[in-house]
């Protein structure tokens, strides 16, 4: 455990240095994220204004708060792209990773933590500027903010582990991309990404409630904005814990048989 942690920290440091080198590319990824949030923000505030103030319990200013916090939570919870995993397996780069005495799960996690830390240096000033432009309204509730950190960590772990479970299928088929695209499409409206969950119609909300995606995104986001009651927060943590444990077990089980049947490409 201690050894794993040490390697995790080392990988984080390496990737911090690497992403500092490629900061322009990282910046562009961040820009894509900002533009996306900005689009939703404009669309929903336009509707709120036309409806005389609120939609789904959100005022114009609260929408601004939602989508500004959105950039932060989205940045913290995104994992690597599935195309990267597929490419590594196709090019045989995965072979070296498998030979190392540590699970690739931790190597990749360290890399992502490094990239996120570096990108924060751009994201935080940007959030500050957005706050000045769009004048968001939100409530900063101390207990809610304290709960944000564990909620974010769990959300990231959940999303990352679930993606890993899916990515492992790449050992059988080198076309995982289709699976991931299906995932992203469903996640798009059931996680709180395109709009706050309270804006969704009944049928979409019913789908969202049986899927894990809202616990990986909307939950930490609403905690940050102070929109949840203590009971709702507890329920959220419970759901996060359940989903995380479940998927972690799946990854462990599937991983063993996956590696057994893995045939190296290239080499």
């Amino acid at each position, binding site marked *: 455990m201690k050894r794993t942690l040490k390697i995790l920290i080392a990988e984080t440091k390496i990737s911090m240095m690497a992403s500092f080198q490629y900061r*322009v590319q990282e910046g562009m990824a961040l820009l894509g994220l900002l533009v996306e949030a900005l689009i939703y923000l*404009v669309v929903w505030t336009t509707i709120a204004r036309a409806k005389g103030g609120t939609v789904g319990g959100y005022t114009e200013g609260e929408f601004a708060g939602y989508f500004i916090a959105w950039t932060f939570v989205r940045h913290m919870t995104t994992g690597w792209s599935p195309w990267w995993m597929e490419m590594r397996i196709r090019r045989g780069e995965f072979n070296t990773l498998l030979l190392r005495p540590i699970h690739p799960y931790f190597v990749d996690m360290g890399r992502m933590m490094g990239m996120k830390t570096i990108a924060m240096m751009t994201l935080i000033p940007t959030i500050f500027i957005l706050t000045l432009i769009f004048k968001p309204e939100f409530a900063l509730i101390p207990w809610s903010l304290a709960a944000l950190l564990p909620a974010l960590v769990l959300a990231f772990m959940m999303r990352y582990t679930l993606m890993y479970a899916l990515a492992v299928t790449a050992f059988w088929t080198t076309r995982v991309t289709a699976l991931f695209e299906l995932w*992203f499409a469903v996640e798009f409206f059931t996680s709180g990404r395109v709009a706050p969950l309270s804006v969704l119609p009944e049928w979409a909300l019913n789908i969202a409630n049986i899927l894990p995606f809202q616990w990986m995104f909307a939950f930490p986001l609403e905690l940050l904005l102070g929109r949840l009651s203590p009971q709702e927060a507890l329920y959220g943590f419970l759901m996060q814990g359940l989903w995380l444990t479940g998927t972690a077990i799946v990854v462990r089980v599937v991983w063993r048989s996956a590696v057994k049947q893995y045939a190296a490409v290239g080499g």
Partner: protein
Amino acid sequence: MMLRLFRLIWTFIRLSALNELQYRANFFMQFFSSLLILANGLIGLALVFYHTESLAGWEPMELLVVVGVYTIIGGLIRAIIQPNMWRILEGVHQGTLDFTLTKPEDSQLLVSMANFELWKLVDLIIGLGVLGYAVVKLGARVGLAEALIFALVLLCGGLMVYSLWLAIATTSFWVVRIWSLFEFFDAMYQAGRWPVGIYPSWLRMILTFLVPVAFAVTAPAEALTARLNTQTLFLAIFVAALTLVASRMFWKYGLKNYTGASA
């Protein structure tokens, strides 16, 4: 002269097609992922119109026109413009551009037409389908005049996007690592999903003159829904002609200063 050009382009298309027909499974992958992207766009629209009858004056079928045009232009960019422009960057980086430049044809034509990603044209078909549906629903409001102006404005928008990409690719003669600018374009292009009129004015300026989403997506959609004023029409034609000429001159100028990587 003209005939020979067309024959040349046709040969390139055929070669690219033959190449991609080897990977037929990719067609279904592309079709699947394009449908998912479209589904997301439609769900977004459905959410909006679940709460309101019109968004900044645009009704559901009119916004569907925007989605259609967005998908068509996006498909054209990914199928024709992007692969060719990436090839220029790669060529400058690896020195393979020199082979293209030694050929006895216009170099700009060669670098712009040599690669097609056939399967990406799926977006073109899906976009046309969406557009067709919306136009049928709009019915009598879309006449022949609207359709013709639409085609003209769409062409202008396409040329502007092409010129911009060519200009970016040309800068790679001086600055090799320029692909971030392509990514910048991609990031901004997604704003075209909605009519640019809804954005705050500073963003609208960027989307009009820096990344011509306003001309490429919104203006054609305006033409089809009888919103386009003559002023915008002439501006679109003028800007398209201007960027086309400017990017060609820039390309020629770049070539003159290019020393090649392999020589």
